[in-house]
Each structure stands twice: as C-alpha cells, then as structure tokens.
C-alpha cells in the first residue's frame, strides 16, 4: 500500500507541476480562436484537436488543470481554517458557544450540499468576469464546506479541554485565545491535515458539477468543470474520443487522492 501511495503521490506531483507551468507548455493561448479549424481532430498543430470555437483543446486542458488544481486546495485551505476557527472555539469554550456553533454546523449539514451550493451561487451575479467567477466559485466551496470538518475539530478540542496540559495552562492564567492558538489547534494538526486532504477531491468534483450546470468558472477561462460541458455532445463521443481527455485527467487526479487518503478517511 505504501508503494501505491508513493506512486499516486508521484503522479499528482507531475500533474501539479505541469499544470503550474501550463502557460509554458500550452501550444497556444487558451482563448485564441483558430476560426479556420473549428472542431478539428487531433493533428500535429492541435494535439487534442480544437473545440467548436476553434480553440486548442490541449492548451485549454492545461490551463483548466491549473485553475482547478490551484484553487481546489485554496478552497480546502479556507474551509479547514474556518473549521479550525469554529470547531476550535466551540470545543475550547464549550457550553453555549459549543451548542451554537454545532447547531450552525447541523444546519449546514442538513441541507444537501449541491442544493446549498447552487442556491448560494445563484445569489451572486451570474455574468461576472472569468477571474471573478473563479474566485466566487472556489470561495463559495471553501466557505460552505466547513461544517463536517468543524464537528471533527470540535470533538477533538472537547477531548482536550479536560486534559492535564490544558488544565495546567488554564491554572497558569492562559487566556482562551492563547489556549486555542498555542495549545489546542497545534494538538489537532493531524485532524486538520486530514480534513484538508479530504476536501480537495470533494471540491474538484463539486466544481465539475457546477461547471457542467453552467454555474462555475465563466468562459473563456477554462476549468475542468466547464471543459466537461463538451461531453454534452455525447453523440459525437465515439467519433471524437479525445473529448474525454479532461474527464480522464480529472478521474486520474481524484483517484490518486483516494489512494493517498486512507480508505476509511475518505468521505462516505
């Protein structure tokens, strides 16, 4: 299993590195339209063909991977920080704070994730610039995905509340903020790391769903979500199997995350 994890991690490192340098590897700018060759099949000039607007598909996949692979971890970081803040404060202070915070987490968890995401995304302007749409999409993912992680962090902080070193720190006059930042959260680092890793593939898939529904990253900026919209022309899938390229890449990345994260930790 250890070898498999190392192998999966290696694949992820390669894909992340290539996507970081997407603009170097991309044969053409992602938005450039070769009007004389729309829907072109793979050729020497266009290795994965072009889309219906004549844009080089390989360049769009490379830049789309950069967008999805940089921003999904950013969203995961945001949600983990929110979970650490809400769960940590609730677990450390206890009492009404804990009931209030966990009540809010329950409220978030009782709403189906995609329903909530769709509703909140619709509240924000739909016709925004591509860059702003990226920020909105991933900020939403990060700010709505904290609830489950907050419960885990709260349970951990609650367990620490009566531990000897926390009692000693309290007896020495340590304030709640210091207690949280210097003693409780550092002790919960493993749980926070696990939540961070678990969130990344979840956010990649959520962005893909939003993108296919037309509520994700705005054109012409590519992301895995809006690249998958090409699959809606499913009748041409057999004739043009290269349309599946972004899906294959996404499945590869998410499955590598599954292999790295132990099965029992993967969200059920």
């Amino acid at each position: 299993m250890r070898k498999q994890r190392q192998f999966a991690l290696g694949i992820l490192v390669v894909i992340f590195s290539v996507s970081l340098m997407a603009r170097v590897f991309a044969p053409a700018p992602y938005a450039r339209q070769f009007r004389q060759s729309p829907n072109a099949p793979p050729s020497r000039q266009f290795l994965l063909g072009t889309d219906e607007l004549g844009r080089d598909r390989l360049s769009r996949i490379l830049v789309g991977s950069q967008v999805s692979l940089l921003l999904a971890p950013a969203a995961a970081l945001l949600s983990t920080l929110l979970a650490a803040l809400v769960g940590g404060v609730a677990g450390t202070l206890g009492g009404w704070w804990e009931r209030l915070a966990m009540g809010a987490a329950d409220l978030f968890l009782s709403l189906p994730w995609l329903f909530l995401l769709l509703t909140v995304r619709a509240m924000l302007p739909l016709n925004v610039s591509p860059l702003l749409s990226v920020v909105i999409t991933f900020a939403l993912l990060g700010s709505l995905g904290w609830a489950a992680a907050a419960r885990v962090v709260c349970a951990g902080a609650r367990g620490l509340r009566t531990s000897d070193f926390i009692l000693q720190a309290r007896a020495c006059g340590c304030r709640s903020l210091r207690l949280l930042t210097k003693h409780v959260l550092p002790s919960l680092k493993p749980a926070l790391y696990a939540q961070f890793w678990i969130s990344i593939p979840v956010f990649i898939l959520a962005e893909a769903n939003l993108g296919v529904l037309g509520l994700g990253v705005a054109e012409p900026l590519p992301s895995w979500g809006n690249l998958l919209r090409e699959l809606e022309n499913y009748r041409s899938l057999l004739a043009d199997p290269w349309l599946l390229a972004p899906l294959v890449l996404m499945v590869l990345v998410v499955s590598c995350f599954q292999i790295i994260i132990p099965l029992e930790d993967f969200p059920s």
Partner: protein
Amino acid sequence: MWIQRIARNLLVILITVLLGGLLGATLVRVAPGFGVDEQLLDARLSQDSIQALQHSRDAERNILLFYARYLAGVFHGNLGVSHTLGRPVAQLLAERLPVTFYSVSIGLLGGWLLGLALALPAAMYRFKAYDLSSTLLSGLFLCLPSAVLGIVFLFVGGPAPLAIALVVFPKVFRYARNLLLQTYGLPHVVTAQAKGLSGARVLLWHVLPPAAPQILALAGVSLSMAFGAAIPIEVIYSSPGIGQLAWLAALGRDLPLLVNLTVLVTVLTLMANTASDLANAACTSQPQ
C-alpha cells in the same frame, strides 16, 4: 421516553427549518442585483407602470417582513408565485415532487442493493481479487461527478434513477465494506466461525445486529446524497423534477421558489435523519 424523543426531534426539525428558510431568504435578499427587473428597462412602459412594478417587490426588500409574510402564507397553503415561471410555487412542487421522489427512491434502492451486494462478499469471503476489483469499481464511480455520470448514462440509454443509484452505490459500498470487515474481526464473530456456524447464520445473527445501527445512520445521509445527485442528473435528462426546478430557479434567481425548495429539501433530509436516528436508537436499545 419515545414520545419525548420524537417531540425533541420534531422541535429540532422545526427550528432548523425556520432558520434554514430565513438563511435562504437572507442570502437572496443581500445578493447583488436583487429586485432589479429587466421589465423596468422596457421603454414602452409608462412611469406609473414602472412604479407599480417597483412597488410589487417592496414587500421582499425587508427580509424579516418577507419571511413573516411567507410563513403566514404557508399556514394558508400559499407558497407564493415563481417569478421566472409565472406559476404558483405549490402547483410547481405538486407537479414535480412525484418525479423526483420516484427517481430518488429507485436510485436509493438500487444504490443500496448494489452497494450491499458488493460489500457482503468482500467482507465474508475476503478474496483479494474480488476485493480489489470491487474497490476499484466503486473508486471509479466515486471519482466521477454526478453530472458526468448523468451524461454517460444518457449516452448509453440508461434511465435517470439508475444514474442516481450509481452515485449512491460507491459510498454505501465503501462504508458497508469497512464496517462489515471490522465486525467480522470482532471476537464473538471469530468464535462463532471457529465453532463451525454457517456463513448465513454468522451474518444474520452475529454480524448484522451490531453493524445495523451504523448502517442505518448512513441511510439518512444517503437521501441527502441522492437529492444532491438529482439536480445535475435531472438537468441532463431534462427530467421535470425538483432538481431541475432548483437549477431553473438558480439561473433565474427566483426568490420564492428558492426559499421554498430550501425549506422543502431541509424538511425531507431532516425527517430522513430523524427516522434513521430513531431506528438506530431502537436497534441499540434491543438486548444483543
């Protein structure tokens, strides 16, 4: 004790639903561009008509007022009118709920049957090749966004409920497989096997009873998964259910429809969670 428990759960549902609805209304109200109607840009409208249009949305500008009026309407069976579709929300929900209920129920049933059917042999016989292939299969489906599963299923001519089943099945399989493997490792199960009890007897008498409460806990959560999957799948299939309605409401920023859908889905999910909690409590209170 049971009545107290049920009453407490109902109270929690009521408070959560009220807060969920208020949260939905607040989000809609504070959203940029709220209250702007493209009809106001129509040059043919007179000043009076424009003012009448502007006043028609005055009641929605104050969140609490909007929400109080909405709740008062709900008690009289009036859920408001959809701005985008121009029809009473209650009528839309009555038309579309059965479609979603059908696809979600069949999807849940199929997902659970498939998940358990694959998990049981994996835990009972522990064949490496079978375990690996079933884990890989579930892993593949876990990596696919539900929208893509919907597209693939439409491509091969499969029905929408089956696509929902394939979203639910990998999660059920993984959870059930891990749980059953743990349960099969418990000392009393090992002893029962060592005494020569048949596989079916070990499963029915010694494995399923301790595992049932945790499996039931997933049953409540799986409804939420199925509803979440129903949105993209109904959109892809153009199936007239509440998933597609939510998408249309989101694109049209339709306030009454969105608040009602938020409340409705919250009620359904909470009821499922409460039912699985009560079933769980009933299981754990039984003497083993």
